[in-house]
């Protein structure tokens, strides 16, 4: 008998079970609930077969313009994902398990978490990492709170080159807390040293920086971090992990807390999620770090195994005194990143970064050859850059959609006075033909 749900019971079993319980019907099981609170039915559509549902949902998927050639970035990138990544994620043993509360039957998940933490530390050149946070934005918020906890101070300086979406998130989360924010404007696409040093009085808990920053510009922030340390503040740096295939690491710049969005490590764009927040820090701060952490240990026979460790930081033990309220995080996304990193390896991750940088450099110069297009900053960039157009970037980008391009992001949406600036991202996915095509299309409309 076909039924609407995935319930396997046949009629005789229902009868036997009701008898064993000692009730006449299922309704009797709800007798504690006053009748006035019980409904007969819901006003939602009747169920459908799998075939029908595939038709309906696929029809929705086709109403999204994923055919546009993608030069959109802003912290979220169209990267190549090796086939092995999805093949591993589809393993039901990973997909349909939960948080590894019983480590003896969760060594797969736990070891993968441990390997992920190791990869994050090796990429960033930091000491310890957690097993994931929700996304790059909540990771910055957690890092800012961690800096406040460690220093006992309440002011956070945020560079305006930090992704504006993340800065908005930071503000939402701290509205009702005793945390003050000060945003430090950028100078030619870079962290403004003078302003930072001036703002770094003895009350600052942490500075939040991003490299590459929202404009795609890259920097050696060692001096800003040193100034922060001198003022007793912690340095939080948000990074784009693929760029670390070639760029100077936050560890080498002496950052204290490193966070970022891990989507570039094997996750699809997915219209904004699920993504992957990560966090790494120095060893001495590990007990102040939020989130799940896998640690290595042994069983009674001396066999190596992995467990969730330092749980005394967490909500299920510490309740309102926990370092964070996080419970379910982004474990499967961290697995995707772990498999991606293994597939790319030491050589591949650098090669991807180089391909991105070379493609972007070519695209930058190609687009600057278009009459009317000008450079916005003189700064060096990784795989994303700003260009200044002769008119409102929103209009230009909108017209390029008709030519088949998602050409870039109009920066004026978040930065006043930059209405004519577009942010263009170029990954290893883009070809010379696509870049040339974009330049030709741009030339034809401006």
């Amino acid at each position: 008998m076909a039924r609407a749900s995935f319930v396997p019971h046949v009629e005789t079993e229902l009868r036997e079970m009701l008898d064993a319980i000692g009730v006449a019907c299922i309704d009797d099981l709800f007798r504690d609930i006053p009748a006035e609170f019980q409904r007969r039915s819901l006003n939602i559509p009747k169920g459908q077969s799998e075939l029908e549902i595939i038709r309906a949902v696929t029809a929705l998927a086709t109403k999204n313009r994923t055919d546009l050639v993608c030069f959109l970035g802003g912290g979220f990138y169209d990267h190549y994902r090796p086939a092995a990544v999805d093949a591993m994620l589809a393993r039901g043993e990973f997909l349909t398990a939960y948080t590894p509360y019983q480590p003896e039957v969760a060594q797969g998940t736990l070891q993968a978490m441990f390997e992920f933490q190791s990869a994050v530390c090796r990429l960033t050149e930091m000491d310890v990492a957690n097993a994931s946070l929700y996304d790059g934005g909540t990771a910055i918020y957690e890092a800012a709170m961690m800096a406040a906890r460690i220093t006992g101070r309440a002011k956070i300086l945020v560079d305006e080159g930090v992704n504006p979406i993340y800065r908005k998130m930071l503000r939402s989360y701290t509205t009702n807390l005793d945390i003050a924010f000060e945003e430090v404007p950028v100078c030619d696409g870079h962290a403004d040293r003078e302003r930072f040093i001036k703002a770094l009085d003895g009350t600052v808990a942490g500075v939040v920086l991003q490299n590459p920053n929202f404009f795609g510009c890259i920097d050696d922030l060692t001096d800003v971090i040193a100034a922060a340390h001198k003022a007793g503040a912690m340095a939080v740096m948000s990074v784009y992990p693929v760029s670390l295939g070639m760029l100077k690491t936050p560890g080498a710049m002496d950052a204290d807390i490193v966070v970022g969005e891990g989507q570039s490590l094997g996750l699809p764009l997915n219209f904004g999620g699920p993504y992957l927040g990560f966090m790494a820090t120095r060893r001495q701060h590990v007990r102040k770090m939020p989130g799940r952490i896998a640690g290595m240990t042994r069983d009674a026979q001396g066999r190596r195994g992995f467990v969730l460790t330092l749980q005394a930081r967490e909500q299920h033990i510490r309740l309102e005194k926990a370092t964070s309220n996080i419970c379910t995080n982004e474990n499967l996304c961290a697995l995707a990143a772990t498999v991606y990193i293994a597939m790319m390896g030491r050589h591949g991750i650098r090669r991807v970064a180089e391909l991105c940088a070379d493609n972007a450099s070519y695209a930058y110069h190609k687009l600057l050859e278009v009459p009317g297009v000008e450079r916005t900053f003189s700064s060096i960039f990784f795989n994303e850059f700003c260009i200044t157009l002769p008119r409102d970037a929103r209009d230009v980008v909108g017209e390029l959609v008709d030519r088949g391009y998602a050409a870039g992001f109009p920066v004026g949406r978040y930065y006043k006075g930059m209405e004519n600036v577009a942010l263009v991202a170029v990954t290893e996915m883009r070809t010379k033909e696509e870049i040339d095509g974009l330049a030709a299309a741009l030339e034809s409309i401006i």
Partner: protein
Amino acid sequence: MELIYELSRPGRCAARLPECSVPPAKAKIPARLKRATPAALPEVSELDVVRHYTNLSRRNFSVDTHFYPLGSCTMKYNPKVNEQMARLDGFCQLHPLLPQLRNGGILTQGALRLIYETERLLAEITGMAEMTMQPMAGAHGELTGVMLMAAYHKKKGNRKKRILIPDSAHGTNPASAAIAGYSVTTIPSNSQGEMDAAALKRELTDDVAGVMLTSPNTVGLFERSLRDVVALVHSVDGLLYYDGANLNAFVGRVRPGDLGFDVVHLNLHKTFSTPHGGGGPGAGAVGVVDRLKPFLPVSRVVKRDDGTYALDYGAPDSIGYIAPFYGNFSVIVRAYTYLRMLGADGLREASDYAVLNANYIRAKLKDEFDVAYDRVCMHECVFSAARQAEHGVHAIDIAKALLDRGYHAPTVYFPLIVKEALMIEPTESESKETIDAFIEAMRGIARLSRENPQALHDAPVTTPVGRLDEVAAAKDIILTAG
């Protein structure tokens, strides 16, 4: 098993990347901005990778391989069609900034409609006026919900400082309330496993912003005093928060909105069948009553008069951005697929059988294990191993013995109000045969606790590793490969 790093051989590489298609760059990134040495990532072949992670996966219990009655987690079957739909190119290759371009909403009509319709379905299921799909997990939904409560009180000029939470609550409740800026007052439970209404009444002063409740509660019971509690809390302009971790008992039958709740969060990865992924990604939709609508996070998906969908960022009283975009979209796709596939009847049937299965286990095991509260339960039943503890066998021993018998353990030592708690949530997807076999295994363990308790202390013996030294893990703190 070896770590992936231990399989490394210098020079090996799985990645098959294309040659560079553009002419050499005119300006290279200078050395001072580059890393000094390559990251020491694995140097392995594709087969090394596939074999390593396939073999790792085999060291997990999961819903696809084992009965997984982990209480409060709703480990129901995750339909495979959900996965297929989430992987459609039209969804997974969609850039989240696309709709933010001018007229960009037109480019993502399918995705926006899917979010909008999911919100409508969940609003009807919960009895709420509006939903947001943005929270990325249950606890994130809690934080969002408490932020909404705070915004409401601020707008009204209410001076509220405290949130009341029963002692049977999930740890995330007090943690979420605290990080939203409230102090937490714990309300004790009574001998019936319900919140002590008299204690609540004593604590319910004008500075109370609201009360966070789980319903059915974490001992699997419907709070019979709920109607009175709702009226009391509203009488001081407090708000009622509904933790939806246990909604799987209620769908199609009881709506939190009808019970008087003002804010709800749902765990799509529990009630609505999206996979748990070993600890996420989940999704924590939040619903509110009319008077809290102005405070919902931006963006909102709206339907225009011409039938198209758009994103609205213009809500002056909104709590702002709580996620970078529109939530864990591919999780929402899975939940939408499930909701539409089951429809009104299927959803109600699922909840009915979840409650049936839990009560069947309660009835069949209550002679061997102390049932925490001897009355009809909802979608999960809580036992105490107190009787076994007299023989030196504790909840943890029973949990480990179950692993040897091919079952994931129930949730143990939670809720905190039950001594030696064993919290069993079978879900509707499990058949009577599976549950009968589990019951037999539990009865066998109960017998063994009387006859040979040492055998239970040694468990598990069939798993890849035995009980691991967690004290050493927390002392040595080895968190990365060498």
